[in-house]
């Protein structure tokens, strides 16, 4: 099954506080009016130019076992390699904000309007990240409706370029998913165009499937640690449901 997703911009656009926090401005800070005005302008440009769209397609474990190794450059202990065999369902996904937003960001930098350019970049990046969560929600809803997953299961996305899954893994992922259908292409370095795009695998399963200790060979170099925050959110949601 391959399904295209149209997003509701209001549903995926980040809150002002989150965008400012992304730029190192804490929620409790007294933010100058001129910075708030820059955010408002960026949000308006984004709403005008963003064309968010996404898709996902089921893939079975055997097929993903062929996609995941990519061109043989993954870390030996890549997280996804340990996670996907335990999943009850898998799907590949991709989403994009469209070309116009990326072009607008570049134009702002060319005009030395750095503050607005960075703000728009932050809005676009955070929205792109959010689309993967929304696609995961759609996939989970489909699985539950079809009786293939329990409502209490969790669907999380994992992407090439992170956690030991080498970026060259994109090529096989694209061969299978064909995100050209929604306007995403790959360059020779396996990077996506438009820039504000995301891709990866959706892994469905119980909380245990997604829990791991961030002690892999590449973890000490990572300052991102979004995996840890994500696992903490999962645990919190489980406790909330208990």
């Amino acid at each position, binding site marked *: 099954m391959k399904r295209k997703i149209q997003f509701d911009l209001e549903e995926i656009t980040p809150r002002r506080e989150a965008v400012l926090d992304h730029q*190192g401005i804490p929620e409790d800070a007294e933010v100058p009016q001129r910075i708030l005005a820059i955010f408002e302008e960026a949000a308006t440009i984004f709403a005008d130019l963003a064309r968010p769209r996404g898709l996902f397609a089921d893939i079975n474990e055997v097929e993903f076992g062929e996609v995941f190794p990519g061109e043989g450059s993954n870390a030996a202990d890549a997280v996804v390699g340990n996670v996907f065999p335990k999943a009850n369902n898998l799907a590949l996904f991709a989403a994009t904000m469209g070309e116009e937003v990326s072009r607008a960001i570049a134009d702002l*930098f060319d005009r030395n309007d*750095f*503050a607005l350019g*960075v703000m728009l970049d932050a809005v676009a*990046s955070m929205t792109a990240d959010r689309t993967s969560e929304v696609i995961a929600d759609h996939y989970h809803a489909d699985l539950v409706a079809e009786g293939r997953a329990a409502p209490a299961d969790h669907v999380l996305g994992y992407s090439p*370029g992170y956690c030991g899954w*080498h970026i060259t893994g994109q090529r096989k992922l694209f061969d299978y998913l064909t995100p050209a259908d929604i306007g995403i292409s790959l360059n020779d370095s396996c990077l*996506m165009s438009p820039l504000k795009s995301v891709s990866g695998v959706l892994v469905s399963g119980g909380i245990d499937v997604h829990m791991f200790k961030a002690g892999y060979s590449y973890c000490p170099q990572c300052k991102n640690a979004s995996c840890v925050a994500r696992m903490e959110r999962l645990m919190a949601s489980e406790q909330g449901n208990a």
Partner: protein
Amino acid sequence: MDLLKEISEALQKGDDAKVGELTKKAIDEGMVPKEILDDGLIAGMDVIGKKFRDHEIFLPDVLLSARAMYAGMDLLKPLFLQGEVPSLGKVVLGTVQGDLHDIGKNLVGIMLKGAGFEIVDLGKDVPPEVFVDTAEKEDAGIIGMSTLLTTTAPAMVRVIEILKERGLDGKIKTIVGGAPVSQNLAEEIGADAYGYDAANAVESVKGIAGV
């Protein structure tokens, strides 16, 4: 008030129109362009850099000041010999091969330019050879490499290897930065410096440039 101080203060407020107007006035009054640059524009950015480092202002404040600085520099540039603004040194910057994320690299470039360095921005997805070839061709003393993805460290390593192969290590210094990069990684791969954010990168570049 002293005109150069006025330029510096307008720049600190991020008032690009005022900086342009005052810079033009300084030029018309016959002030030496290098003085306007050093004691007006760079002096103002220096204050901004320190305030940002000390968490007194936010990133957008810095970027508004950077735009104001560029407004002044655009007026000064034609007045320097062959249009080349005197600099503290030349830095070749780029996002490494295998990565298209360039916002961090752009911020570092803006801050370095504000501090008085000349920037050769190679953009994103830059092959290792291009970093070194450009640094040699441009006679740059520093290569700055940025990445966001966690799987692109080998591209940084390759740049450092090429410098060694060509006997340029020590002559051309390297600085690395980006979300998955740490001081430990920088040391492990043999980079000369590490910048954890744009303001810190300026301090680190000044350190390895010896200025």
